[in-house]
């Protein structure tokens, strides 16, 4: 029986060494390992993994093709549903999606679907055939706002259909959260992200950086003056949240967005670059998501003693299991059921610690997670120099504020139907800008769904 083979372990950088560098943690499978792991798949008649995949990748089929050594075929099967396999293979929360549903996981270990997807994606980036010829140009133009996962996916599908597509990016480099948010040690920028972006450009998509839509240009000026037939908003959820506790404006309190942008986009950890970053001796990161893990592990790599403070228990940590596991291996300290109530400063106005309370779990809230309540009289202090707030992000209100007829929810998310159509004619949206901070794969899927809707809309004009 195929499932007698244990899950093929993946090679990783030694934790003690990787905690001092920014090289990728996981080396991924080589071909031999990938083929062996692929042989574990039972090829279920009713594959639960496909149902659990947000974009419905035909997982058993791509694994079967891989098992037979037909790598191009495996890549093509994934391409039908996902445009960013190298990235999603690395950053998807597989344990709650495909792998979490794998039948082998009931008694043993699920097939390492994420690692296999990554293997196929990386193979394609290096050896894959040039993208299939795009449809002839149809003379219609679409503007895409944001060059993150949603924008890239939408742009490449539209370009394949024959549209002239230009992506407008606010920052100086394309990639969105893939570049400013997710660190190098989890998602290599040159080897993976830059190549995915090159592949999108190879389809004829143009990318104009330094354009803040809502300020440099507006959605109206793109439609009325620059001759675009439709606009796709994939501007993500970039606005950081703070706790609203005393001491949050002390020197040394930063948002995870600021800390990670300095490290990732601005290469602050590299002496060749001018942007400074401050880590001090001891760093406390507040939050339990992937961004919190990215921030705490970056702080560790920059030489600090790094601690996660999270108000629920380990079971509720929203981060990928692999990231929590890697963080522990790297020596990150976890203080669960702990919530800051005040950031403490010294006489110069710099952080000297955080005052916290212990929490216990009460009744489940609307999200189904047990909500934490304060344990009376449990106040204590953690000494530190830097506090990084990783409490989630929300969409930037700039586009809604500068575009007539573009409605948003109370949480600031752009209102869009299941096809991505917003309340404004000709304007579509998808990804975190619509859902609030979510995953790369959902954003990528929303970008592709919107591309179809944009095509239908323009044909109907």
């Amino acid at each position, binding site marked *: 029986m195929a499932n007698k083979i244990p899950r093929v372990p993946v090679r990783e950088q030694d934790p003690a060494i990787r905690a001092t560098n920014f090289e990728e943690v996981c080396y991924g499978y080589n071909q031999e390992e990938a083929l062996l792991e692929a042989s574990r798949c039972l090829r279920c008649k009713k594959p639960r993994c496909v149902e659990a995949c947000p974009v419905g990748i035909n997982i058993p089929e791509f694994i079967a093709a891989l098992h037979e050594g037909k790598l191009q075929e495996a890549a093509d099967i994934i391409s039908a549903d996902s445009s960013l396999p190298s990235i999603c293979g690395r950053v998807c929360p597989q344990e709650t999606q495909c792998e979490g549903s794998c039948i082998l996981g009931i008694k043993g270990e699920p097939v390492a679907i994420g690692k296999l997807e990554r293997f196929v994606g990386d193979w394609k980036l290096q050896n894959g055939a040039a993208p299939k010829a795009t449809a002839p140009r149809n003379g219609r133009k679409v503007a895409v706002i944001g060059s993150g996962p949603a924008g890239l996916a939408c742009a490449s599908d539209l370009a394949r259909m024959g549209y002239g597509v230009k992506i407008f990016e*606010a*920052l*100086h480099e394309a990639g969105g959260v893939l570049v*400013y948010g997710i660190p190098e040690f989890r998602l290599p920028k040159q080897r993976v992200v830059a190549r995915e972006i090159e592949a999108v450009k190879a389809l004829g998509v143009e990318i104009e*950086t*330094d*354009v*803040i839509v809502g*300020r*440099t*240009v507006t959605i109206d000026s793109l439609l009325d003056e620059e001759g675009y037939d439709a606009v796709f908003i994939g501007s993500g959820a*970039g*606005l*950081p949240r*703070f706790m609203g506790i005393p001491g*949050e*404006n002390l*020197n*040394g309190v*930063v*948002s995870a*967005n*600021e800390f990670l*942008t*300095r490290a990732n986009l*601005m*290469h602050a950890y590299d*002496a*060749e*670059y*001018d*942007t*400074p970053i*401050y880590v001090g001796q001891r760093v406390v990161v507040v939050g339990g998501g992937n961004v919190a893990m990215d921030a705490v592990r970056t702080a560790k790599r920059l030489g600090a003693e790094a601690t996660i403070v999270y108000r629920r228990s380990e079971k509720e940590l929203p981060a990928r299991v692999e990231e929590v596991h890697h963080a522990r291996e790297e020596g990150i300290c976890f203080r669960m059921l702990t919530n800051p109530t005040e950031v403490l400063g010294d006489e*110069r*106005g710099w952080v000297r610690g955080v005052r916290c309370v212990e929490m216990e779990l009460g009744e489940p809230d609307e999200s189904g997670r047990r909500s934490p309540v304060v344990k009376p009289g449990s106040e204590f202090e953690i000494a530190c120099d830097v506090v990084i707030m990783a409490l989630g992000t929300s969409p*930037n209100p*700039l586009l809604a504020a500068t575009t007539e007829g573009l409605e948003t929810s109370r949480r600031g998310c752009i209102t869009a139907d299941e096809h991505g159509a917003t309340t404004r004619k000709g304007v579509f949206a998808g990804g975190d800008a619509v859902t609030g901070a979510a995953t790369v794969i959902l954003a990528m899927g929303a970008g592709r769904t919107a591309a179809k809707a944009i095509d239908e809309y323009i044909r109907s004009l």
Partner: protein
Amino acid sequence: MYPILEKRLLAEGIWLMKIHAPRVARSAQPGQFVIVRADAHGERIPLTISDFDAAEGSVTIVTQAIGASTRKICALEQGEALADFAGPLGRPSEFVHLPLEEVRQRRYLFVAGGVGTAPIYPQVKWLKEHGVRADVIIGAKNSRMLIYTDAMRAVAENLYIATDDGSEGFKGMVTGLIEELVEQRGERYDECVAIGPMIMMKFVALTTRKYNLKTTVSLNALMVDGTGMCGACRVTVGGKTRFTCVDGPEFDGHEVDFDEAMRRQGMYRTQEQRAAAIEAEREAGHVCKIGLDK
């Protein structure tokens, strides 16, 4: 890339640069700023727009070479280019959006300090073009450090100069000149706009509070992206945390917590100073053997 169309020395260490940035020039309004990056290794730094010309597709910035990044920008020559020039960012000055009849009723007093004189110019120019009266005070250490005096004289109703050493105009701080105008000469203003070093804006706001004179200040907080993403530019205004990049850069000067704002400006200073010192050593031919440059 954004070519430098013109570069001029205004005073010691203060450079004017006219940049070819047609999209920014077309959308810019008084009070807004840009994020500039000198080269591929450069820092993103915010600079307030000093002039713009949509027809020419140009935007003017005035930079004082004080830190590693501003020195890098100022070292570029006419014909070379900035790697990035993103904007216009922030909210335009309030008067741009108010009914013109209302603004015309007002008399403005602008107080400019040092390199902050340059971003005052597009505001006074806008008001002049729209028939609004504005007096301008320019303050500097001495007459050699004064900038924009001729340009300002052309658009201001009255131009007053204050120098610390009295080498030109009023001898003393701009706050002393404000007191003289209001208390001795009986000038009446409806609104004050102050742009300059944080410490100057703090004391201008303290002075105008005595006269209950509404005062707008333009904060030059630290920023990374300039679009609301990082929160480095957090400032307390009226007891609430605001982001300078998206909620400002102009705020009610009587509500700003200047002491906090000044402290936050220094967040990376020690590191910058260290970097500058290492750079100076390197230029002098010194190679660090004990790893301080790592």
